[in-house]
């Protein structure tokens, strides 16, 4: 690994964990989509379930940003960017 690559890797490692946090938020709040024994392919709309769970995670982020802190979740807190209001997110 060249010095440029090493520098790039170290600088990116601080932020790439945020990608995993996004999936963690979905599974943390909506445990149903993380329980394989409940998710039966060809019997349940699993993709639809995960899609809706992600939407509800975004809804919770918007609600929490108005309720507690200006960020709503740890990813927004790390990057210092506030989400929109719930109405703007769903109907904006």
């Amino acid at each position: 690994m060249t010095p440029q690559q090493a520098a790039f890797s170290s600088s990116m490692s601080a932020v790439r964990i945020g990608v995993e946090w996004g999936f963690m938020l979905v599974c943390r709040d909506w445990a149903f989509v993380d329980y394989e024994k409940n998710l039966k392919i060809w019997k349940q709309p699993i993709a639809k379930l995960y899609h809706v769970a992600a939407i509800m995670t975004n809804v919770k982020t918007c609600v929490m940003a108005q309720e507690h802190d200006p960020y709503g979740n740890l990813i927004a807190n790390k990057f210092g960017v506030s989400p929109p209001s719930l109405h703007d997110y769903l109907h904006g």
Partner: protein
Amino acid sequence: MTCSLACVRSWATGINRVAIWSFENMYSETECWEWFRFPKARMSEILRELKLHDSGCPDGKWRFYDSRGIAQYAFEPMQVLVVFLARMSSLNTWSRLVRFLGGGSTTACKAAFSIALEHIFVHFRGTMSDITRWSAEADVWAAAVHAAGVAYDMLCGVGSYVDVVVVHVMRTITTNMKYEAKRTLFQHEFRSLAHGGIQLPLGRKLSSRGQRCARRCTRRVLRRIHRRDFPSLRASCFRPAARLLWLLQEPRREIPERGGPERSHRRLFWTRSWATRRWVPFATLEIPGAYAPFLPRRWPPLLRVWRSGIRSLPVYHAWFQGSDDSPAGCILVVNERCAHRG
């Protein structure tokens, strides 16, 4: 509001149920946090914003119709939301949830859940499928990524991340791919589905793609994201100077169920670098520019998938990021500046 919480016996299920369902009287603030994931005071707002407060019927109730068009169940709007959130947030079976939800039959609860699921998916999937919706914030995202510690000259305005997660599910054993309700066929095996998503720095998921069988899922989902999402995303969200898009994966988590973990792992997520001839972590990318003069004659097998996309793009050099002993992630970076750095 006068409500009765006196329990009456349900002859259908044998479970006590409340005479009049009332959200205000049945659930405390703590229970709302634990089971619904939202503050109790905000539930009515969420109900209204999700457009669940009015079903369109004269009495405002949601009705579940069977295949003959006959209404089997009627639910209060808040009851539909409560059933949906409680189901999504817990691992309990329906029979255990029924008592918390006020009694009644599990079939009725499933009906309420399906009403809410279908309603939210139909009305609000555009919030995630419309990938260019937040293009006005692209500069804000890029600045946020830069402020978090990424050198700006390395990331030319990237404002979002892409990743794929594997969701393990059960696959019902079937005969000729048809579900059969017979005794010996009620076995399951594990399958894995992949969902790909684009994550914004502000913590909202921008897009979600799925579902794909996970044995070769990551590549397929990423390819789908590239083909459908990235052209519009790049056109609207990325700055004109952007030359760099990157994907992250976590290879060690994606162990296919067949072929042995080591062999499949290497086949799926490692490829041989044409520069060093070493096996390196594999990632996929979309490169803006004409890359054809710099492509090797023999393509690594996995990169062959991207050949048509890479060929027409003007980038001068590519290098792999990551090493054999770094399972945290892998990045394939293409940046025109790399040509000058050698």
